[in-house]
């Protein structure tokens, strides 16, 4: 055979191959709904079940929150599969949830311990994606883990529904197309809390910050400083403390002779329990400084922490994303459902995780597919109600939910072992809103 013939034959084979390939591909491109279905990671379309991953801290400084998050996820799975009393599926609107899983597929889950550490969270999530084949993962109670998981989500093209993360960075500097946050943030805490602090403690105050030394602590300190200095408060000192320090006495003793009359604890979880308890042991709440009573403020508050801090938390002000004693129907339904299941009301960490699971499932139903770019588009700009926070919007530009924020106070005489916090004020969305460009950051592409 001549060289020409060989060439000619090769062309024929190539042409025939291309034609055959195009022929095989055409029907699925033209006739199949969700033609992209075969082209994304962990596509559950051909399976009877869909796998979700719940990556929560079961050890470390935020283990209390993690355990409650996992309870909430399990309850959400139950409700999505049409078991139990349905919880907030009954109040959530507009909803396309059917109680028959997601897109007709029964929901299953795997869980992992993120150890409240960014590297462990990433490793656990990667395992869920690569080994367990999850189509979405959620959870976490630390902004450091949230930022790490969002980056991983973007890399791997798997949606990450943040659990409890309060750092501004999560939806500002470090926002990602594949990451969504229902929880509020430190800027919102500052804006909600400042007017109450002015009413309670006046404009002439000297504040001392003790701050957890990582992304959340830094942005909370920055936000609270900005909000309180605007009121006229002076910041005497802001000291960083290592996460999980345990004994904070060496950081508390300098507060006593610093001239400060307010201590702001930018701590959460076990750190907050320890620092607040120890501050009270140091007699800080019995002191008079600058002619005023010494006060302690905990900008981010939760019932689980108050439970741990006990007496020390009574009368202390802070903010929260949600609380089980709110009077709206959705909150009542969820608190009842969770309480009957576990014998205790849900924490705000549990609430946000439950809501995130339902929101993701609903977005899949709205998109009619599990294909992440379409699910993301369904979530972006989605407005909903009936989830315990009043009217809420997932802002498209930064994937941050905008809704009401609660200012809370530790109850002096609790009527029962769960009613440890009272709502001082429900701050409207308009007071805590900010431009989408604030803090910078880019969401990145839809297609990972």
């Amino acid at each position, binding site marked *: 055979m001549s060289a020409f013939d060989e060439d000619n034959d090769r062309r024929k084979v190539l042409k025939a191959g291309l034609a055959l390939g195009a022929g095989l591909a055409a029907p699925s491109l033209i006739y199949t709904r969700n033609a992209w279905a075969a082209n994304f990671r962990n596509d559950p379309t051909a399976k009877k079940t869909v796998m979700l991953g719940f990556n929560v801290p*079961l*050890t470390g400084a935020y*283990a*209390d929150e993690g*355990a409650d998050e996992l309870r909430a996820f399990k309850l959400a799975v139950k409700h999505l599969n049409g078991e139990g009393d349905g919880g907030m599926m009954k109040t959530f609107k507009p909803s396309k949830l059917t109680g028959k899983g997601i897109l007709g597929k029964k929901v299953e889950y795997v869980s992992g311990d993120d150890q409240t550490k960014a590297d462990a969270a990433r490793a656990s999530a990667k395992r869920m994606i690569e080994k367990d084949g999850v189509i979405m993962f959620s959870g976490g109670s630390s902004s450091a883990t949230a930022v790490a998981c969002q980056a991983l989500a973007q890399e791997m093209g798997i949606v990450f529904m943040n659990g409890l993360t309060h750092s501004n960075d999560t939806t500002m500097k470090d926002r990602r197309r594949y990451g969504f946050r229902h929880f509020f943030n430190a800027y919102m805490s500052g804006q909600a809390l400042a007017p109450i602090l002015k009413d309670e403690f006046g404009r002439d105050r000297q504040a001392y910050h003790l701050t957890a030394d990582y992304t959340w602590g830094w942005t909370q300190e920055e936000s609270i400083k900005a909000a309180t200095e605007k009121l006229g408060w002076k910041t005497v*000192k802001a*000291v960083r403390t*290592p996460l999980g320090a*345990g*004994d904070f*006495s*060496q*950081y508390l*003793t*300098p507060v*006593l*002779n*610093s001239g400060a009359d307010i201590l702001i604890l930018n701590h959460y979880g*076990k750190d907050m*329990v*320890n620092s607040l*308890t*120890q501050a009270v*042991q*140091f*007699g800080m709440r*019995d*002191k008079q400084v600058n002619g005023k009573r010494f006060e302690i403020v905990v900008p981010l508050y939760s019932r689980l922490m108050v439970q*741990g*801090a*006990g007496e020390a938390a009574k009368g202390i002000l802070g903010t929260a994303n949600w609380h*089980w004693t709110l009077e709206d129907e959705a909150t*009542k339904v969820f*608190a*009842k459902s*969770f*309480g*009957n299941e576990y*014998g*205790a*009301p849900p924490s705000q960490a549990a609430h946000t995780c439950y809501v995130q699971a339902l929101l993701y499932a609903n977005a899949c139903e709205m998109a009619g597919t599990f294909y992440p770019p379409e699910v993301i588009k369904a979530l972006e700009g989605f407005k909903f109600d009936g989830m315990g926070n009043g009217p809420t919007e997932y802002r498209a530009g930064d994937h941050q939910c905008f809704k009401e924020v609660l200012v809370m106070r530790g109850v002096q005489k609790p*009527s*029962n*072992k*769960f*009613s440890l916090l009272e709502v001082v004020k429900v701050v409207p969305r308009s007071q805590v809103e900010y431009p989408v460009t604030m803090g910078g950051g880019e969401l990145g592409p839809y297609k990972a």
Partner: protein
Amino acid sequence: MDAVVLQLLNGLDKGGAYALIALGLTLIFGTLGVVNFAHGALFMIGGFCAVTMQKLLTLSKKVKDESVTFFDSYTEVPYLRLWLGDAGERIIDYAVPLSILLAIPVMLLLGVAIERGLIRHFYRRPHADQILVTFGLAIVLQEIVKASFGANPIPTPAPAIVAGSAAVGSWIGLSDVVSYPWWRLVYFLFSLAVIGAVFAFLRFTTFGMVVRAGMRDRETVGLFGIDIERRFTIVFGIAVVVAGLAGAMYTPILSPDYHMGMEFLVLSFVVVVVGGMGSLEGAVAAGFLLGILQSFASMNEVKSLIPGIDQIIIYMVAVAILLVRPRGLMGRTGVMET
């Protein structure tokens, strides 16, 4: 001056904990020649003796809580309160100090069991083997506690009478800014008492004299027909009791969780090395010295000069001391030098 006094007090209570753990470590190393990496876990087990005592004293009857209307909730009323009223409440309030009564026998038994059942098989093995086996033991103990009590810290408050702070400043003619938590003062005094008791036991009893002699020359003491191994087993038990007591009384300062011992273990080893391997006096002196230095390094004035110094001061001092005195402050010749 106020700041200096406050940091000094802070250093003393921290140093008390370091000294107690380091004392136990040194006792074990000095007698048995074993580097015990499970000592932090034993400190933690002591903390959980306090938790167990609290749980025992608050064994409760479940009563339906009518104030929770959303779901069926039950509140727990301790039997002691039901049976004894206010007297029962007072007993519960003293759970932590009462836990000493539980910690002493439990830790002694645990110590003897660990030494007889595990450690003695490693006397003639290299230090690396001893470190591995004791570290493994620490992990096992941690996981048992985690499985039994959960991963979260459990609040164990001090008795109400010492829950507040003492006006230390007014006692010594300083301003009332200088106040310090009562329980931390109690802990400092407690650590002094335990250290004093251990030293007195070793110095003024025949048993102690034999142990000291055995620490110096085990073989010669054996030639006198004394069963030195049995005595060292008891010393191991005593070292474990010291760690347990340190942990039990520390719980109002730091709510115990399964991991609390590890946080102290590394620092305590530094204390032992700085004090001098095998030197009991050195361990105690280095414990207080490093506690105080760490506290002073946390002063804002110091940190503004050298940021982050509070995190590394102990290790910097350890390096400096070992460069100048390679055997530590009071280390003996020949210890760990073969």
